[in-house]
């Protein structure tokens, strides 16, 4: 094969790949895509809340220091904000997806509120921090159930 043929083959392969990627990137989302996105958002939020609860418990027991708690809760806040952003960026394509949205939306809001409470209690007395962590169990459970049912 001459070098011109190699070049033509390479250009064709690149063009086909480019086209395939373009199609995948721009095709409208269906229920499956929407479900995948919502489960992913729920997983991020659940991981953030569960980790925040572990961190809060450890802080209340004096097992981790304040700087670590600040950094860890900042990561959790970022994860929940990222999940909410991804979730809000895409509208539901059909009715089934709308049901999913209506189920997850309040859970994400509750997760943010629960994290705010943990952060607020982080510099207070251990009992308050333990209470905030315990209060977050409800939303963590809700997110875990959402993931189990829809993944």
């Amino acid at each position, binding site marked *: 094969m001459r070098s011109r043929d190699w070049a033509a083959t390479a250009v064709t392969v690149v063009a086909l790949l480019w086209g395939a990627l373009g199609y995948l990137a721009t095709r409208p989302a269906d229920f499956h895509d929407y479900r995948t996105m919502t489960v992913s958002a729920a997983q991020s939020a659940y*991981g953030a809340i569960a980790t925040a609860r572990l961190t809060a418990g450890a802080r209340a027991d004096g097992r981790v220091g304040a700087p670590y708690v600040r950094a*860890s809760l900042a990561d959790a806040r970022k994860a929940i904000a990222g999940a909410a952003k991804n979730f809000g960026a895409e509208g539901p394509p059909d009715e089934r997806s709308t049901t999913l949205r209506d189920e997850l939306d309040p859970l994400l809001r509750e997760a943010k509120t629960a994290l705010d409470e943990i952060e607020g209690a982080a510099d207070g007395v251990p009992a308050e921090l333990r209470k905030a962590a315990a209060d977050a169990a409800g939303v963590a459970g809700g997110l875990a159930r959402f993931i189990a049912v829809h993944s």
Partner: protein
Amino acid sequence: MKRLLAVTLGILTAIGGFVDIGDIVSTSEAGARFGLSHAWVLVVGVVGICVYAEMAGRVAAVSGRPVFDLVRERLGPRVALVNLVGSYLITVATLGAEIGGVALALQLLNGAPYLVWVPLVAVVLWLALWRVRFETLERVFGLAGLALIVVLVSAFSLRPAFGTVTHLTPPAGENWPTYWFFAIALFASAMTPYEVFFFSSGGVEEHWTPRDLNVSRVNVFVGFPLGGLLAFGFLATSATVFHPLGVRVDTLGQAVLPAGLAYGQIGLALAIVGVFAATFGAAMETSLSAGYTVAQYFGWAWGKMLRPRRATRFHLVVLVSILVAVAALLTTIDPIQLTEYMLIFSAIALPLTYLPILVVANDRGYLGNKVNGRFANVLGLVYLVIVVAAAVAAIPLMVMTGMGG
């Protein structure tokens, strides 16, 4: 005593090379999602890096020249250029991830955002490479990295389900493509190309001769398995704390939390200091490796042992590599995600690194009667097949699983 100190080269390579930010997060994430079912990959990775690092160390000790230098000479400038481009890009991406890892460790220690630390870490890194003696860097960061032993001890005190080590299947809720995606990422993190280039160049810098072959082998067979054991610590602690909760691990803070749960603030502080030392050590290795590969390809004077004035182009490449890595981080790209991508692209480039090493290690013109024996060649070929399989499967699995979904 001198021999003992020489072993610190291997420890530094292992701590910095095997346990870097990517390993910490990828082993922790694998443990959280798959329990201990990926432990076998760490064993396969440790044996693989030992096989090829032993060859690279032998080449350096017998020929007095680093592997990359010989690759260019033996396989020609074109093949070596492909190798250079692939290795250099991956090494600079790794460098960015390591600097990000150091900054993240500092964030965990004092709470200030990691991006504030990035430029400072880069300046200290450059000054350390410019001004501080090689042996001092080895000892300080190699030994400080041993603080990560607390993670391994925590793994035992948290009582992971060791019986599940033999469960080589994905747990409920996970699938085979994701299982293999993580296996490839873990394998690639163990066999990162910069490790062998750093190891062989470091051997030349330390003026290894054939009489130092045993030192080289002790470095390889003690240092790399130790690194693998520490990586297993992260896998096991994560499998114990996060897997039962169904929590995914994707931050450094999560990875070190089990040490705090097991041993309180002292345990947590040791783990963070260990991560700091390991990632800083890896940042030094990757910076130097970037300089080594480019300088050795173009035939420039190179080396940390040379005064900077005598190896200006080498030091310039090191500096530029650090600046590129910092610029990438300042775009606010997540260092953890950067590392995850780097690992997958590293997997693709692995054959470019390891095939030439196998060829050079069989060349009597360089190694005389110290060429590979039958056992080394069989292992080398087996690992070459694994490396090629990982390279071929990496991208399809990345697409199928959405980066491990």
